[in-house]
């Protein structure tokens, strides 16, 4: 590893720490004041945004040093892309912050960015050279624009989430509280993934399997988590390792499914731990944070982020994507799963805008839509790469 790559890694680490500090500072900024007065941006908030900007600069440093080391924009595998996405999310937050001066956005946006960076770092981090299909300037143009669009749309999710936390009545159980908890659980499951992967990695767990793959050929795979589900006709080679409870058919990637099961299970444990300790729904637990939030303003921020993010996403995810696909894959559109999910994302936000503009879906409905839109983006980012995998499965 060259020095530059080392530096790059350190800068990313620095930005992570800075975002963490900034989150706490923003937390201080939204603490209710003693006199109960409506507050402007206080010193905590100013300090928070300063640290956030510093963190952002550090992350830019990571990005460009890695670019210099590799000779191509570091957006060519899952680790690099997700990290870049988190950077765009923070960038979008900074812009929105200067437009609306809302520290509460930082309290939600930065933790999401932190979880995203942690999530990214679970994937292979080495600098890989570009395969022929990726050797194009369009790599940096297309991928960065998509990530920027998705980062801005993520802010719409965060504002929507704040809106929901604020407005949903936590005094009784309802459909709304259930789905809000589902979102919270989803976020916690990502943390669960990071926790469980890191734990077993530190413990050095490895279990090797021989199995028969989709093409009917013999293959081997090393599991880094105890195999709850094992591969097709799998045979455990490593001694003293957990024997799979169930065997998967050949077309399912058992290793990835196993990781998903572990993450969901760990998330489940963490979630219930929080609930049992606090004796509250997670939604209710965070509700005090948004006490002073103006919900109409949140609605507007959420909508505004969609208005800014939608054109950027269209440009990067569809138009630039089509131009590059025409050059690299001979056709601008080929119904590859990733392409289809970009189209689905686009159609979804198109529907969102029509519902809002023409059918008057404001407030809570709009907030739910912003949340669902983000779920679709995450699905495309994570599940399509890991589960469906078409031409885009570089990672």
């Amino acid at each position: 590893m060259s020095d530059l790559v080392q530096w790059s890694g350190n800068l990313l680490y620095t930005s992570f720490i800075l975002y963490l500090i900034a989150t706490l500072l923003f937390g201080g900024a939204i603490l209710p004041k003693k006199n109960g007065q409506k507050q402007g941006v206080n010193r905590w908030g100013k300090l928070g945004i300063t640290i956030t900007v510093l963190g952002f600069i550090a992350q830019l440093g990571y990005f460009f040093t890695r670019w210099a080391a590799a000779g191509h924009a570091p957006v060519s595998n899952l680790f690099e892309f997700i990290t870049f996405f988190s950077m765009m999310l923070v960038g979008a937050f900074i812009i929105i912050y200067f437009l609306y001066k809302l520290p509460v956005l930082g309290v939600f946006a930065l933790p999401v960015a932190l979880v995203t960076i942690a999530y990214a770092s679970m994937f292979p981090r080495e600098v890989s050279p570009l395969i022929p299909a990726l050797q194009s300037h369009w790599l940096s143009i297309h991928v960065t624009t998509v990530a920027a669009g998705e980062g801005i749309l993520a802010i719409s999710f965060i504002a929507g989430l704040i809106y929901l936390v604020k407005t949903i009545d936590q005094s009784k159980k309802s459909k709304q509280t259930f789905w809000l908890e589902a979102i919270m659980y989803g976020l916690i499951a990502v943390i669960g993934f990071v926790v469980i992967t890191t734990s077993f990695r530190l413990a050095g767990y490895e279990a090797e399997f021989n199995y028969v793959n989709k093409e009917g050929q013999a293959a081997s795979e090393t599991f880094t988590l105890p195999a709850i589900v094992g591969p097709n006709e799998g045979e455990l080679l490593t001694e003293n390792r957990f024997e799979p409870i169930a065997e998967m058919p050949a077309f399912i990637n058992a290793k990835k499914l196993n990781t998903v099961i572990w993450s969901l299970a760990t998330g489940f444990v963490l979630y219930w731990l929080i609930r049992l300790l606090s004796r509250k729904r997670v939604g209710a637990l965070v509700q005090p944070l948004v006490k002073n939030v103006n919900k109409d303003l949140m609605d507007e921020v959420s909508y505004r982020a969609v208005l800014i993010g939608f054109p950027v996403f269209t440009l990067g995810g569809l138009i630039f994507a089509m131009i590059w696909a025409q050059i690299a894959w001979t056709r601008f559109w080929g119904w590859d799963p990733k392409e289809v999910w970009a189209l689905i994302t686009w159609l979804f936000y198109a529907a969102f805008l029509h519902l809002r503009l023409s059918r008057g879906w404001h407030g809570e409905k709009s907030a739910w839509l912003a949340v669902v839109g983000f779920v679709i983006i995450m699905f495309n980012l994570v599940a399509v790469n890991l589960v469906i995998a078409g031409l885009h499965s570089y990672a």
Partner: protein
Amino acid sequence: MGKVKCECGHVNPHGTVLCESCGRALTEEAKKEKFHDMRYEGSARRSQTYNKTIVDKVWNFFSSVKVGVWLIVLTLIASSLGTIFPQEFYIPNNVTADTYYEDTYGIAGKIYYMLGFHDLYNSIWFIALVASIGVSLVICSLDRVIPLHRALKNQRVARHTTFMKKQRLFASREGTIEPQEIGKVKESLKESRYHIREEDGSLLAEKGRFSRWGPYVNHIGLIIFLIGAMLRSVEGMYVDELLWIREGETLEIPGTDGEYYLKNEQFIMENYDKEKDSEVFSEAIEENGVIAKNYQTDAILYRDENRDLPGAEPELVEVKKEDIRVNEPMKFDQFALYQNGFSQNEMKAMEFMLTNKETQEAVGAVKIDLFNPKDVYDLGNGYKVELLGYYPDYDGIGKDGEPKTKSPVPNNPAFLFNLVSPEHPDGEVAFTAIRQTMEPMGETDYKMEFSNIETRDISALTVRKDLTLWILALGGTIFMIGVIQGSFWAHRRLWIRQVDGKVYVAAHTNKNWHGLQRELDSIIEHTSIPSPEDQQASEQSGKEKN
């Protein structure tokens, strides 16, 4: 079913909700509203005004945004279904769809195939969905843009007070405004790029009206895009061919009507090398084993000058020499040639030694071109090798006792030789295949000993012509312009009116109320004009207090 005349004297089209000129509510519902619905300025949406004939009914169906949203949602769900399992065009070439899905994905795969989801995006119903969206785009836009344009064109400066009161941003007070204060506000409004119109003491400041046309512009872009996609199926607009070409071969480029030929000089495949490439990659190379670096066909493009009939000898003139790489297609005329795939190490020639079995002495070498073998290979001194039979893709012996070949491709070449030597002037018959020799007519003194093999690569190039690209690009560009126009700008209006000893101020925007309020606050600050307040917010905070 006539026109609606407003109290202010303006004549509105039938179905108008708010007078185009003064904004007075014209319907009972509008009079009862807390806030006016300003989406289409209260103009008459034509589709809702006539509903007599079947044409009107169809029209009204597609004119509904609700229907449009449903179409979008249905397309969205349908699209996602197609990604559950790979589409037919992504499954391996050597299997058929009817068995592949069931074999690979079990019962779920079988159902998927039976429902036709394996080729979902070419199915009639999916195309019908997309086409319906296209129709909806045209009709929805037509139905809304005309009345909206009318309403915005006809709007009067002085709006009726009821209209102003029912705007989200509103304020009023007793008294009048000093003319110099009006002047000051006008100055600041102009600085903020507002267009100002005045009419006996009333004022209308407006900016960003063009953003209201954004949605219609982007819909036009989408319609053009869909037209482009439709035209692709017109004969001659689109070519999609695959050209498999061996190293050294010169072939007609399919789809060019015999005008162009291509020679494959050589095919190159490179992988990243830990030693040669940048050391930052060494870890990744170690981890992954092999990472491809380059796929390349060194090609020469020819034009056939006589452009004769198929099968005729072409008269080739070199046009250009170029290396075709992934991401770097060769372009000529309206065509582009893309590096698409390859197959390495196809056998081209085999070399054998005619060998005396006893002495192990080699008499001479015979090199057989697997694509153009000769009858006889004369080695001199009474030695020669006759080729009695050639089976390029040997597949065992048939019922008639003859060796069989599966295909004309030399995947597994086999030969029936007659080995002539001074000892055996009539020759000895030997059958030679890879890892197998037979002597069908009895044991021989000589044999053909395999000594060498020549191979070459085959490159697969996609031949593409797409005359619809510029239409799609135009549609895409217009769409982007429209989307940006509609989402990065806002249509803001401020009305100030003095009537009956009262001052009324109201403001409206189609988005970003927060921004409008901030802007107005800074403009109206330090004047006696009341700053409009968000009635929706105060209403809520009022509620919360109670």
